[in-house]
């Protein structure tokens, strides 16, 4: 069965710090990879996705993620975080025709 691991459960950063959130998945075949974000009081929304092609994908608000097939990883990065990036971030994988599987989430707190 496919699974997704997010290693950091709670991350606290100061504004302008760089961010990297880890995501690893377990599935050997072709995968679609996603990062979703949930801002306080809002619903989940798509941040970025990898479907095929360039393994470095760029999303909204300056976020990017790199798909490294050999490491089964899809880490999320942002060079300089802002207070408004405070949210919960979920990595998700869709393999074959199975429903999207989500990680347990990483809560990011950015201090001004």
């Amino acid at each position, binding site marked *: 069965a496919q699974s997704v691991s997010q290693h950091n459960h709670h991350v606290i950063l100061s504004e302008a710090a760089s961010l990297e959130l880890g995501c690893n998945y377990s599935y050997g075949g072709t995968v679609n990879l996603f990062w979703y974000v949930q801002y306080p009081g809002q619903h989940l929304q798509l941040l970025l996705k990898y479907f095929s092609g360039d393994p470095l994908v760029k999303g909204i608000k300056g976020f990017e993620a790199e798909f490294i097939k050999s490491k089964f990883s899809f880490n999320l990065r942002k060079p300089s975080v802002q207070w408004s990036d405070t949210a919960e971030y*979920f990595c998700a994988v*869709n393999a074959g025709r199975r*429903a*999207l599987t*989500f990680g347990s989430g990483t809560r990011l707190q950015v201090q001004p």
Partner: protein
Amino acid sequence: GAGVSQSPSNKVTEKGKDVELRCDPISGHTALYWYRQRLGQGLEFLIYFQGNSAPDKSGLPSDRFSAERTGESVSTLTIQRTQQEDSAVYLCASSPLPEGFGGELFFGEGSRLTVL
């Protein structure tokens, strides 16, 4: 409406009662998902509907859980004889593409269920 609509937004019930949660997907979206999110945990897949195909029920945790969807419209998730471990936020999402095609899921704001 413009987004996925779920009701009720909050539901408090007593152990043993049945509850029904409703989801209105985005018009034209053929795929509809139900997920459950327990406190401090990730999203747990429950059930998936795609058009008029048989639903994927592989995520339903027990036979107390069931869901229906008529065509490409409203879906209801029913939990019978609720237990305290059913307390969670139940999220509905719809997508314009079938699963496996990399389509974005559009989520509702969820129904928070508390079983006393």
